[in-house]
């Protein structure tokens, strides 16, 4: 079963740099959502992509951007990294075209450390 896969698993970046994280959704899913999980906190919704467009966004600055490709995979880009961006970044996929009552499946996450 092809679950949600994320790459890389770990990443260390310097303040001010840019980073790209990648996600492949579960087979058959068409929607990708990204979450930021700071240490000791629950995941916080960043944004959601469906049909290659950002459909909704949480309370994150424009430094956070994304993209969805025709094969439903997605990228999360963060520009001008801050120390506070250090976190576990989670990708979740679901089948939005079903609309009601679907569940999200999560990847293992990318641990980003900004130094």
């Amino acid at each position, binding site marked *: 079963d092809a*679950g*949600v896969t994320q790459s890389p698993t770990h990443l260390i970046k310097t303040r001010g740099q840019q980073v790209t994280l990648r996600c492949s959704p579960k087979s058959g899913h068409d*929607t990708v*959502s990204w*979450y930021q999980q700071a240490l*000791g*906190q*629950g*995941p*916080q*919704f960043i944004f*959601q992509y*469906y049909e290659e467009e950002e*459909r*909704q966004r*949480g309370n994150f600055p424009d430094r956070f951007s994304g993209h969805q490709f025709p094969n439903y995979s997605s990228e999360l880009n963060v520009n001008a990294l801050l120390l506070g961006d250090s976190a576990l970044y*989670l990708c*979740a996929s*679901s089948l*939005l075209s079903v*609309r*009601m*009552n*679907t*569940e*999200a*499946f*999560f*990847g*293992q*996450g990318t641990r980003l450390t900004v130094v």
Partner: protein
Amino acid sequence: AQSVSQHNHHVILSEAASLELGCNYSYGGTVNLFWYVQYPGQHLQLLLKYFSGDPLVKGIKGFEAEFIKSKFSFNLRKPSVQWSDTAEYFCAVNSPSNTGKLIFGQGTTLQVKP
């Protein structure tokens, strides 16, 4: 504002003890409710979910949760915990018409002593 509150941040139990983790939500309208578990080094996994119907839902590994609409609560229970239940537990909520956005509580760390 939509929010989820988990009352217990860190719970320590001995094996065979009973577990109840509290979860309250603030959300206008109809909700879907979830409990996710994150074992050390692993991804978030769905324990159980409530969409509609019987407010007592059963999940994997012997877990169950009860939705009490009047109390805006969705507490997680297990009659007898095992050492392998040591993990982080998250309560989450979304709207049936907006399933792509989950709102999570801050999590409860459960430590089960053998």
